[in-house]
Each structure stands twice: as structure tokens, then as C-alpha cells.
């Protein structure tokens, strides 16, 4: 599904959003809420002080030109500034809540078939299910909770979560297809599931709380910016507090109302008012791309990622490798290798194992032993083999060619060059070769075919243009890895990688000062996902991978990182751009208010905008200061457009637009407002 179609599909109902936001803007005037925003809190205090001067204009002394009407207008404009800032945050929150409501609509309290200890079924409400419970879901059921498939095979419609209506096969024992999400629907057959989350803790619930912003905490970048804004505000307060005595000495006394106006005009109210809206809108954009993020910190980190490490199977490839062909060696027949392959895979519950069994049975292979008296040997990342131990002591194995060679030699067997030729043939096709043997006798190679996900190459090209290096890690041999890496278009690859190798690569890149993102879906990816700065697990992956990662991609698209990097960079760039704009605005405000304040001291010549009077100059600057906040709300919510260009080019462009623009725009705007103020006779 294309991004535009997905965003359109996820379009939420924003009817009544602005009315609710306006109402919420008034509620946010509560001082306990205002305290969280230092810049706007200072404006809040200033508004109360100027309101007092409306009641008693001579409260802080009598100054020529000061009157109740002027004080009232200043108070009204400051109050509007507060409301606009609160409105911006409320609109962002409202959009998030609307998105959360549309997600909540996909949730429903359903009846679940809980499997008791004795395997009898008890019908219970889905809200009573707990982590570890076993449930049975059949065709037509809505899956009542997030779970891991432990039995059965079924097709699941995940469109409620991903928007994609093509059903997905779910079966146990697979890294790719063993987990299900609550709210999705069984289309065929049935599954036995183990519930993996308590009520309120499912992925859908986490996505809802993320977009609602209920548990949102400030990210490191936001905290740093808040400190900067607090420092600037403090400096300006001290400067403004010392002006009255100097003004008195210069024979140009200034009223408290004008001083507060100067203070509010100087402190960065634009970015102060829009900062939280930018952060909330960023999180909502992440959710619109069907990614569940555990924190804003991870999203911000995406913006600075320089290396992406990807697993091969299930991430770059479709992951459901199927047995395509048996290649016998050592003069064995096709039937003989099929027999041994079947025997080695009888206990293998993975899709690969099942496909080997199907192919072997298709070729007429049968087993001549009783599985109940036979021991199955599970696959491990260390041995890279699995198989069967027969009651008579015969060991049958299948696995990585090097591992099987070592096994054969240890059992006194020989390795023929035929095996290497077959292995190379399969590898050059991009397939995974598994060698199969019985004791010290090699029987041949099983060719497992894997398919690269469509469109991957173009997405990796895009990552490269963004300056992100891609590294593919796989347990496969070098030749297969090289063929797949070349076909997919990754920058580098590491073959025959163990789980420790994955962590070592990430640590090596991190030690070189790089931010590393890792995409994976298997349980063996979990430690690496936890180690990486940004860990993105596929929704189709195992629960362990999803728990270890700090993001889950519900579309299971390994190149979703492109969108996450864009959103992360957009967040950082938007904050930087609006901060630059906010601080640049000050220059024009100096030229508006300072000459007006000290006109008697003879610096009226600095009134380069030709503003009508001292009072109109102050009012115009304040009105501009207030109106610029709602004017920039759309930009704050949408984010500054990110283009994949170099950092220097980006900096140059944004300084020109927001820096120079921030200097020039207020001159024009304040003059225009001054003309309007004079025409309306407000000053």
C-alpha cells in the first residue's frame, strides 16, 4: 500500500476539532498547566500584572501617556497570545485524540475461548484474559488479544491494524509468522494462541496512548530547547527589570505596561508556544505510518541514524523459504536423499522444515521408524544443525554445509568435492543450501529458495542518498549473502553471523560514534535490537523481538526506517527552524518598541518603520507577536519539509528562509498592523 493511500485510509474524523481545541485552550490557562511551559508562564504572569494596571492605571506610578484604554488593549493582546499558544497545543492533542478514537473503534470487547488446564474451553470476556492464557480462535473470530501462535495454521486479515487487506498466514515455530495482534480477524482454519499482553498493554493500546499523548514525556531535544528558552527568558527579565531606572535617569520614564510589552515581545513566545505542538504532531505522524514507538526519544534518534543493520530472512527477503529441490551427491539417488531429508525434518516445525517434508513426501519418501520412540534435535544458532536421533543410535542431521561437514568428519566420514559444487550452485542462485547426512555419510544438498521483497532496491538507494549506510547480517554462507546483498542493493554484508556477531557489529559502529538502527524479526535478533540506538521490530516477528525493540512496524516493512528517519529529521528541523524564526523576529521588535520607549531621550530616529506613535508601536509589535503563533500552527503540525540533501545545504536553506525571513517579515507585518491600528483609532 502506498503512503498516500495509507494516510488517506487512516484519515481521522476531525469534525469539531477546532471548537474543542478552543475550549481546551481556556482550560489550559490553569497555572499548574502553564507552569510546564516557562516562556508562556512568564507571559501569563505579565498578563495578570497588566490586568491590574487596567483596574488601577496609577498602581505602579503615574507615567505620561499611560492610560486605562492602552493597558486594556495590551492585556487583551497578551491574553490572546496565551490562548493562541494553548490553542496550538490543543489542536495537536485533538488530532492525536481523534486518531486514538479511530484506533479504539477497532478494539472491541469480544468473547474469547479460553483453554483451561484440561484443554476444555471456557468462554470468557476478552478483558479477563491475562498474559500466559491459552485461547482458541476459529474462522470468523476477531482475535481478542495480542498472542503467540502455539498451534494450528490459519489466514489472518490484519487490515484493522495495517490497512492491508491481503491475508497473512500465521503458524507456530516461525520467526516470521508466529505472532498475532488483537483486533485482527481469522479468515480460515483455526489457531491456538498464548496471550502475550495484559489488558491495556497490547500493541493497539500502546499505539493509542502514544497518539493520545497521555504518557508523553519531553524528549532530550525538547528538554535542551526548554533550557535554552528559559535562559533567554531569564536574561530578558533581568534586562527589562533594570530599564525603568535608566529610563527615569534619561528623562524618558516607562510604564510597567510598556515594560511587560517589551519583555513579552523579546522572549521567544513563538517557539515557546509551538514547541509542544511540534512534538505531539511528530508522534502522530509516526503512528500514521503504522509504527508503534515506545518513546519520542527513539523517534528523535531516528533523525540522526547513520547506519542501518538488517537481518536477511524475513526482513530483506519474504522469509518463507521453501524447499525447491534436492541435489544428491556421492551417487545417492533422489529418493534416498528425500528419505534422509524427511527423517531429519520430521520434528522440524518451522516453515522450512515443513516444506522439506512436503517435497520429500511428494518424491515418494516415507519414514521407517516410530516418531514416538525417536528423539528430535532442535536447531540452535551455535550448532546450525537440526535432526533426528533414531532408537538404534543413528544420527540424521541437516543444516549449514560447514556444520554438516564437521559432523560428518567427526563421525569418520569423508566430504566429497561434489558437495561443494552443489553448495556453490545453490548459493549462486541466491538460495540457502542445507546439507543432509546420516552418521558419516553425506547424502546431498537441499535448496531452500528465498525471495527478496519487491521494491527493496529502490528504498535502499533512497537510504543511501540520505547518508545512511546499510549492512545486511545473515547466518547464510558468503556466496548466498553476496548474491542477495547485490540483488537487494545493500552497502555491505556480514555472512555466517551468529547473534553475538550482530551485537558486535552494532557495538563497533556505536564505538565509532555512529547512531545505529537495527531492523529484525526473530528471537535471535532481540539482543541486537536492544543494543541498537533504534530497534525496529517487524510486527510479523516474534514477541521477543517486539519486546526488545523500541519500535514495532505494523506493516513489517524493513525500509520503513526511511519514513522514520524523515519524521525524526523533520521534528528536529522544525524545532530549529521555528526557534531561528522566533529569535530573528526580535530584531524588528527592537526597532518597534525601543525608539517608542525612549523617544524623549532622542533616539526617535531609530523608528525606521515610521510607526505612527509610541502606543501604536507597542500595540503593533504585540499584535504581531500574538498573531504569528496561529499563523505558524499549520507549519508546526505538518513539519518543515525534509529534502534528502547534505547537512550544509539544508542549514544554508533554512537560515535563509527562517533566519533572514524571520528578520524581514516582522518589519513588513508590524508596519501593516500599525497602519491598521492607526486607522481603527486604537492608539
Amino acid at each position, binding site marked *: 500500500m502506498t503512503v498516500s493511500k495509507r494516510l488517506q485510509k487512516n484519515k481521522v474524523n476531525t469534525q469539531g476539532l477546532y471548537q474543542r481545541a478552543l475550549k481546551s485552550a481556556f482550560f489550559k490557562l490553569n497555572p499548574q498547566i502553564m507552569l510546564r511551559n516557562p516562556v508562556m508562564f512568564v507571559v501569563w504572569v505579565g498578563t495578570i500584572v497588566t490586568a491590574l494596571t487596567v483596574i488601577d492605571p496609577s498602581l505602579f506610578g503615574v507615567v505620561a501617556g499611560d492610560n486605562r484604554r492602552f493597558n486594556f488593549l495590551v492585556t487583551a493582546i497578551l491574553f490572546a497570545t496565551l490562548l493562541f499558544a494553548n490553542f496550538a497545543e490543543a489542536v495537536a492533542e485533538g488530532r492525536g485524540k481523534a486518531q486514538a478514537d479511530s484506533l479504539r473503534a477497532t478494539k472491541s470487547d469480544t468473547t474469547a475461548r479460553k483453554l483451561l488446564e484440561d484443554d476444555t474451553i471456557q468462554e470468557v470476556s476478552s478483558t479477563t484474559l491475562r498474559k500466559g492464557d491459552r485461547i482458541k480462535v476459529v474462522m470468523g473470530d476477531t482475535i481478542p488479544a495480542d498472542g503467540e501462535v502455539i498451534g494450528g495454521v490459519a489466514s489472518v486479515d490484519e487490515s484493522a491494524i495495517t490497512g492491508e487487506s491481503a491475508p497473512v498466514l500465521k503458524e507456530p515455530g516461525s520467526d516470521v509468522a508466529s505472532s498475532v495482534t488483537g483486533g485482527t480477524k481469522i479468515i480460515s482454519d483455526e489457531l491456538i494462541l498464548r496471550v502475550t499482553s495484559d489488558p491495556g498493554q497490547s500493541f493497539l493500546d500502546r499505539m493509542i496512548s502514544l497518539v493520545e499523548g497521555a504518557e508523553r514525556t519531553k524528549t532530550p531535544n525538547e*528538554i535542551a530547547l526548554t*533550557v535554552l528558552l528559559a535562559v533567554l527568558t531569564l536574561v530578558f527579565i533581568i534586562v527589562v527589570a533594570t530599564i525603568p531606572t535608566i529610563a527615569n535617569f534619561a528623562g524618558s520614564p516607562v510604564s510597567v505596561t510598556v515594560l511587560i510589552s517589551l519583555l513579552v515581545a523579546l522572549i521567544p513566545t513563538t517557539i515557546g508556544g509551538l514547541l509542544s505542538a511540534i512534538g505531539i504532531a511528530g508522534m502522530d505522524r509516526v503512528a500514521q505510518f503504522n509504527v508503534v514507538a515506545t518513546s519520542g526519544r527513539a523517534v528523535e534518534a531516528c533523525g540522526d541514524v547513520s547506519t542501518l543493520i538488517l537481518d536477511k530472512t524475513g526482513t530483506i527477503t519474504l522469509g518463507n523459504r521453501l524447499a525447491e529441490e534436492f541435489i544428491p551427491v556421492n551417487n545417492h539417488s533422489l529418493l534416498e536423499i528425500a528419505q534422509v531429508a524427511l527423517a531429519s525434518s520430521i520434528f522440524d516445525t518451522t516453515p522450512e522444515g515443513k516444506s522439506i517434508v512436503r517435497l520429500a513426501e511428494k518424491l515418494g519418501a516415507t519414514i521407517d521408524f516410530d516418531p514416538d520412540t525417536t528423539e528430535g534435535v532442535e536447531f540452535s544458532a551455535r550448532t546450525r544443525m537440526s535432526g533426528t536421533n533414531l532408537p538404534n543410535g543413528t544420527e540424521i542431521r541437516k543444516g549449514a554445509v560447514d556444520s554438516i561437514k564437521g559432523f560428518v568428519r567427526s563421525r569418520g566420514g569423508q566430504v566429497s568435492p561434489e558437495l561443494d559444487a552443489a553448495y556453490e550452485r545453490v548459493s549462486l542462485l541466491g538460495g540457502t543450501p542445507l546439507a543432509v547426512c546420516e552418521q558419516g555419510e553425506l547424502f546431498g544438498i537441499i535448496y531452500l529458495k528465498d525471495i527478496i521483497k519487491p521494491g527493496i532496491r529502490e528504498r535502499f538507494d533512497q537510504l543511501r542518498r540520505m547518508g545512511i549506510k546499510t549492512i545486511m547480517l545473515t547466518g547464510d554462507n558468503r556466496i548466498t549473502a553476496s548474491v542477495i546483498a547485490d540483488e537487494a542493493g545493500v552497502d555491505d554484508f556480514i555472512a555466517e553471523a551468529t547473534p553475538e556477531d550482530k551485537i558486535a557489529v552494532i557495538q563497533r559502529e556505536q564505538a565509532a560514534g555512529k547512531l545505529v538502527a537495527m531492523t529484525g524479526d526473530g528471537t535471535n535478533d532481540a539482543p541486537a535490537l536492544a543494543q541498537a540506538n533504534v530497534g525496529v521490530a517487524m510486527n510479523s516477528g516474534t514477541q521477543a523481538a517486539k519486546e526488545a525493540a523500541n519500535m514495532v512496524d505494523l506493516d513489517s516493512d524493513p525500509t520503513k526506517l526511511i519514513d522514520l528517519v524523515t519524521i525524526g529529521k523533520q521534528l528536529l528541523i522544525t524545532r530549529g527552524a521555528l526557534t531561528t524564526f522566533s529569535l530573528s523576529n526580535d530584531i524588528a521588535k527592537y526597532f518597534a518598541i525601543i525608539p517608542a520607549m525612549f523617544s524623549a531621550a532622542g533616539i526617535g530616529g531609530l523608528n525606521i518603520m515610521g510607526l505612527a506613535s509610541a502606543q501604536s508601536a507597542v500595540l503593533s509589535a504585540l499584535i504581531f507577536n500574538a498573531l504569528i503563533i496561529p499563523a505558524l500552527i499549520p507549519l508546526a503540525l505538518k513539519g518543515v519539509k525534509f529534502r534528502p540533501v547534505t547537512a550544509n545545504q539544508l542549514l544554508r536553506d533554512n537560515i535563509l528562509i527562517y533566519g533572514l525571513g524571520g528578520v524581514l517579515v516582522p518589519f513588513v507585518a508590524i508596519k501593516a498592523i500599525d497602519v491598521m491600528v492607526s486607522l481603527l483609532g486604537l492608539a
Partner: protein
Amino acid sequence: MKIRQVLADTIGYDLLAGKAELQEFSRQNSKAIAIFLLLCLNLPLAQVVYAGTGAEITPKTAWAIALLGLVILGLCIYLFMVILQPERF
């Protein structure tokens, strides 16, 4: 101490931890602190200059200005808390 207890109970602020943070902050940013203190020197100097202008103020105005001064002081303390412990806000 009582003040520490009151601050901890009412606004959850640990005075000792705050003091340690302030000392660490001052040590790391001594030049910036020096410039800031020079800026603050404006405030007492300003009062001397103001007294020299001979302007007359009523008791009501004096009280109002004093209260405003306290409000400004409160704002400065609040902003210092934001700078030193921004994660609380």
C-alpha cells in the same frame, strides 16, 4: 532541617540535591556565571540611580513595586529551577 522538609513535602524539591547540582553547574560554567552576576549588578545599581532621580512615589506605589519585585524574583527562581532540572517540567 525544616525548610528542606517543607520544600520536599510541598513541591517535592530536594534542597540538598539542588544545592549539589548548583555547585556542579557553577563549577562547569564559571565564566557564564560571572557574566550573569555582572548583569545582576544592574539591579542594586539601578536602585541607587533611581533614588538619585528624585522621583516621588506614594506608599501604595511603593508596595506595588515591592510586590512586583518579589514576583520577578519568584519568576527568576522558577526559571533557574527549569534550567537546573528541566525534566521536572
